Structures are given as C-alpha cells and as structure tokens.
C-alpha cells in the first residue's frame, strides 16, 4: 500500500527492507551508525541492525571505497556512503580503477556488488566543495552503473535494484530532494536499472531531465502548457546504462529535444543524449537540440552568484521557448 | 634442436637494437642464463643472457650490421655436435613466427 512519505524515508525504507531480506547487506561510512548519517538517511537503522552492519568509519574515503570492494568480492553487499559526491574524488582510484574493473579483468571470476551512495547537486550555498554534480565522470567509466532518482518512489525502487545488482552502482541523492514527499508503496519493490520513466506526456518537445531538474522541468511544463506548449518530460533515472529507446520514441513523436541537467555542459550527460539522438533519430528532429546545464564555472558561495549559475524552472521554460522559436 | 636467437625487445619503446659485442664465438659452448652478447637499445646498453644451452652454431648479425629490428634472427644455438642448415633453420623459424 502506498503512503505519502519523504524521499529520505523512502531511501531509508529501501535500505532497511534489503537489510532485513539479505544478511550480506551492510552500510559503512562516516556517521552512518548511531548518528544516522549526514542527512539522516540511516536514522534508526543502527538501532535495528546494530553497529556491525551500520559501520561507522573514519573519514577515509579511499579506505571506505576500497574495503567495500574487498568485502563485495567476498560475497557481501556493502553500501558505502561517501557522503558528498565531491568527496568521492578522494576515492576515485578505488571506484573507477578497482570497483569498476575487477569483474572485467578477472574475466568474471569475481563480482563487485556494491553501492556507492553520495549526495549530489546544489542546495544552499554549499559552495565549491559541496555542490558537485560530476556524475559524468562515472558515466564515462565502463563497469559502473549510475543512478539518480528524482522522486521518493524512484529513490526506493532504485536503491533496492542497486543493492541487488551484481555490479557497482553509483547511487546519487540530490540534496534538494531529501524532503520532497510522494507516494511510495510500503512493500519492497525494484525499479529495474536502465529503465526511464515518462514523467509527463507531451507532443511539442521532449525534455530529458535528471535529478532535481526533473521537478524543475515539470514546473516549467506546467507553465508552458498555459501558453499552449505541450512538453514531454523524461527522467532516465539510470544515467548509465541509460534507456535510449524511451528517449528515441519520445523524440520521434515531438521532433524537439532539450536536455536539462545539473552537470556541466562539455562531455556531460546532456551532450551524450543529444549525440545519441542525433546519431539515431536525426531525421525526426525538427530543430537543433539544445541543452541547459549548470554554467561552466566553479560553484560560487554567495546566493546571487550561486543562483545565477544553476538551472531553475524559469530558465527551463525560457530554454523551451527559445528552442521552439529557433530556425527549423 | 636448433634455436634461433633474435634481436630481443628490451623495453616497450624499443623497435630495433645494435649488437655491441658477442661474448661468445661461433663454436663456443653456451649455458642458458650466461651472458651471450651486449646490445644497444633506444635507452641503454644491456647485457643479454642466452635463452638456451648448447653451442653457438652461427652468428647472423654483428656490430657492422648496425640497427636490427626486434625479433630478427641474429644467431643460432644448436645442440652439441648437431649439424645445421642455417638457411633452413631461419626459414622454419620465420614460417613458425608468421614473419
């Protein structure tokens, strides 16, 4: 039965149910234990499962990421909380060279079923070291799967799939979404990795949006509908491997594509989707596709500057209007 | 059995080498692991050990040959007392190596 709960509760419920189902699942990271994690993602889990399975660690990102690899190779299913995507840089070798590659280079003799959880994106003046959205680095690493849910329902269904997957999964939690509420079934359920969802149907233009950008795009679509513009919003949910088929179907219907994402423009997820669509459905495109991203700069601290560099619903709407007015 | 000794590759960037000196003469007995020759690579002068025990039956390349591509035959080591047809041994080697 579905109830209306917060994103963070849905995420926690997914982890709790997997830990109840599978004794090999455990969580490790700085503060995941009695403290319940930086954003309270694991609140109450330590009381239920104990400190053996809610393992507080030192702030040793490399060791957290690396021990998760070793434990996963031995049949455990660790969820390693790296807290902020920005901190994952300290663990990049273990994530991209070890977790991502060991199954491959061992010719399938070992598998590395683990989840690296990290919060991502803008919130409030977190500035240069706590506002990162550089998931395209992980997308660009064969062997990693990358997940970025935009609703409480997806948060739960995707964490369950991520835990059950036999490959390492980067599970991104957008900080602006933690308190968003939505309907979530109480029983465990898995949303398959690699399956997008059409969050709103439309006929004039396809927006492919990720994370917090999905909500921004839906708000923009609502406003645009009043102007007679019908926007379809697709959330890939899994950024790698992404659901190319759903995107192509939509673009073949609308003939127009705008990618909205919080990462940077160059070699980003949006550029990838545009390249994919151009390669596979050029004949369906009525106008040149565009992307709206965070501006190519270090994220500034002061709110006026910070707001200036990120997408918002008004900018999404403006980008849609501009695209539709452009030369066909 | 006769074994062909080639200009060895010693280092990932090496494409050719020069013989600096043979430490053995034709007809000398050779032990596997003994220094057989020294070569000049793109990076350094290195001593090269024999890969086989036997007799240095034929030297095919000397310092006068200058640069020799890696894996080109430069000598033949045969069993003691074995008589060999140099051309035949090299031919067989090339056909086996697909060169």
């Amino acid at each position, binding site marked *: 039965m579905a109830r209306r709960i917060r994103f963070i509760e849905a995420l926690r419920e997914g982890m709790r149910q997997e830990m109840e189902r599978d004794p090999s699942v455990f969580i490790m990271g700085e503060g995941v234990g009695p403290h319940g994690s930086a954003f309270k993602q694991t609140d109450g889990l330590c009381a239920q499962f104990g400190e053996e399975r809610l393992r507080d660690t030192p702030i040793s990102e490399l*060791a957290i990421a*690396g021990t998760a690899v070793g434990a996963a190779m031995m049949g455990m299913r*660790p969820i390693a909380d790296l807290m902020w995507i920005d901190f994952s840089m300290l663990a990049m070798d*273990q994530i991209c060279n070890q977790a991502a590659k060991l199954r491959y280079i*061992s*010719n*399938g003799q070992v598998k590395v079923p683990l989840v690296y959880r990290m919060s991502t994106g803008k919130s409030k003046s977190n500035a240069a070291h706590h506002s990162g959205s550089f998931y395209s680095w992980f997308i660009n690493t064969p062997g990693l799967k990358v997940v970025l849910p935009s609703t409480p329902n997806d948060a739960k269904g995707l964490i369950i799939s991520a835990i059950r997957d036999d490959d390492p999964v980067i599970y991104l939690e957008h900080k602006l979404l933690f308190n968003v509420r939505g309907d979530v079934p109480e029983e465990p359920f898995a949303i398959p990795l690699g399956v997008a969802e059409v969050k709103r149907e439309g006929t004039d233009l396809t927006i492919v949006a990720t994370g917090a950008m999905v909500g921004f795009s839906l708000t923009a679509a609502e406003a645009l509908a009043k102007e007679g513009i019908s926007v379809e919003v697709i959330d890939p949910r899994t950024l790698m491997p992404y659901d190319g088929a759903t995107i192509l179907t939509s673009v073949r219907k609308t003939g127009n594509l705008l990618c909205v994402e919080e990462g940077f423009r160059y070699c980003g997820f949006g550029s990838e989707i545009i390249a994919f669509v151009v390669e596979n459905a050029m004949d369906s495109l009525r106008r040149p596709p565009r992307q709206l991203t965070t501006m190519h700069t270090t994220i500034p601290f002061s709110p006026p500057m910070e707001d200036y560099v990120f997408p918002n619903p008004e900018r999404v709407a403006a980008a849609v209007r501009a695209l539709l007015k452009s030369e066909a | 059995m006769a074994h062909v000794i080639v200009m060895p590759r010693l*280092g990932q960037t090496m494409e050719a080498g020069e013989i600096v000196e043979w430490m053995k003469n034709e007809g000398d007995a050779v032990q596997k692991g003994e220094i057989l020759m020294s070569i000049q690579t793109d990076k350094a002068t290195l001593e090269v050990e024999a890969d086989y025990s036997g007799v240095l039956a034929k030297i095919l390349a000397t310092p006068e040959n200058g640069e020799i591509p890696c894996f080109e035959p430069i000598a033949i080591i045969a069993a003691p007392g074995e008589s060999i047809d140099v051309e035949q041994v090299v031919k067989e080697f090339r056909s086996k190596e697909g060169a």
Partner: protein
Amino acid sequence: MDNAMKVRLLETMLNIRKAELQLAILYKNGKVPCAAHLYEGQEAIAAGVCAQLRVDDCLTSTHRGHGHCIAKGMPMKEMIAEVCARKTGCCGGKGGTMHLFKPDIGVMGTIGIVGAGIPVATGIALAMKMQKTDRVAVSFFGDGAANNGAFHESLNLASVWKLPVIFVCENNRYATSVAVWRSTSVEKIGDRAASYSIPGVTVDGNCVDEVYAATEAALSRARTGQGPTLIEAVTYRVRGHYEGDDAAYRKQGELTEAREHDPIEYWKQKLIEDGVLREEDFAALAAKAEAEAEEAAAFAVDSPFPAPEEALILTAQI
C-alpha cells in the same frame, strides 16, 4: 618447521624463479605484449608467507605479482598464458601480467595501481570477519605503496576494526626508480605499525625462515581475532623495474652485493648444512621447476588468443 616444509619452501622459490626467468625469455622474444615486472630475488617472501596460508585464505598483490600467484597455488601454465595474453590464461587475456585472479584458491587479484590492493585486502578481511570465519587476508605491496595514502588509511581502519589481515611490505629498495632512502621518512617501514597500534616487524626478506616465522606470529594473531600485523620484508629488486630497464639509478656495487645474498642460495646452503638436502637433490628440484616453466611457456605460446569480440563481454552496453 618440519623438513617437508623446508623443502616445500625451496620448491616454491624455485618454481617462482624459473617461471620468472622463462617470462624474461618470452618477453625478449616478443611473446609478452606489455612491460613485465619480474619478481626474481624476492621469492622468499611469497614462499614464506603463502606456505602457511590455507586455500580459503586470500591475497591481493601488485604489478609485480606473478610470484604470489604461484606461491598461492596458481598453476604456472595459467599465469604464464595470461601474461602472454592468451585465452587459456587465468583471466582469459582480459587481465594480463598486472591483473591476475584465481579466487577459488584465494588469489583475489594482483592490482596494477601502487597501494590499491591494500584497502581491497582490508575489505576482504572485513567480509571474513563479518562472515564469522577464521580466514585471513594478506596484502602484498612494496616500499613505494607504504608512502601512499591507501597504506595509511587501510592500516588505521584494519586496526580500529581488528581485522584478520596481514600487511606484507616487500621493501625491494626501489619504488620504480626512486630509492627508498630518498623517499621514505623512516629507516624501517615496519616501525610505521606503531602509528596504528598494531605489531610491526622488519625481517630479512631474503631469508625464508625469517619471513616464515614472522608470518606464523601474524597468522596466529589474525586467526584468533587479535587483528592485523605489518611485516616489512627487506629484499632487493635484482631486475630493473621492468624488463629492459638498465636501472642506472642503482648505487655502485649494490646489485653485486644483492646477488650474493640470493634467497634461494641462502636456503639451499642452510638445508644442506642441516642435512635436509644434498646438492644433487637441489639440482633435481631446479631441473624439475625449469622443465615445468618451459612446458608452461610452450603451452602459452601454443594457446590461442581470445577473439576480439570477447572484449565487450561483461560490460553493460547501451
């Protein structure tokens, strides 16, 4: 240590030595498609440590890891065929010389990034502990890795969690081309254990009996829940960093001196003095190891390469 074990240690060292020398030949002749980092001269460490491990104990190793695989029980054929990039290699040609795996005997990977195997072994030990076994993980790494954050973070975490892991630092005096005395703040890397409140010992890594004894103590701690140990085994890398490295950075006379303290020669003399072995026994063991290495090399060279399309197996595609 009984006599059978004494001979077994010698056999393992000979197997490693002969396999490595065979690889040197294969490399020279173009059968190894990449750089090869050989383990000659360090055999006593792999042999002394692995002789006491059970099949279900696990290890991680380094770019110079052929010897650890052999000591843990990997057939020479599978190792050499992998280094020669063949389908019959232990990883079907996907891994190569720096990425050797055989998890069913506890070879959980030789890893090409310096230091990166240390946290992985720590995690293996974490799983062993959480699964309530008495299995033990061993991480082999070099003096270079001891200056890497992975070493320090892992020793700290393993100590905090009292994990059943043995950290074996093979100090072969060179991190690639930089001498340990130019790069390392301590005289003995074993002393660094004190920072993490775990036992640390420094032994002569060319004396297999010293390595064996240190491992025995570390294993007994690990198996009984007393946590990790750091063993520094001092040795010398008698070959260059890679085949073809002229190692111009060595000090005058260093190599000659190291060659005189050869681990196999040391152990052979010891066994002869103890009456465990005769010269002719040694010659027979050496010949046997050499024949096996030659056979493995022939097997590798005669094996097919993997099909190109196999490259995409095991990676998610769009």
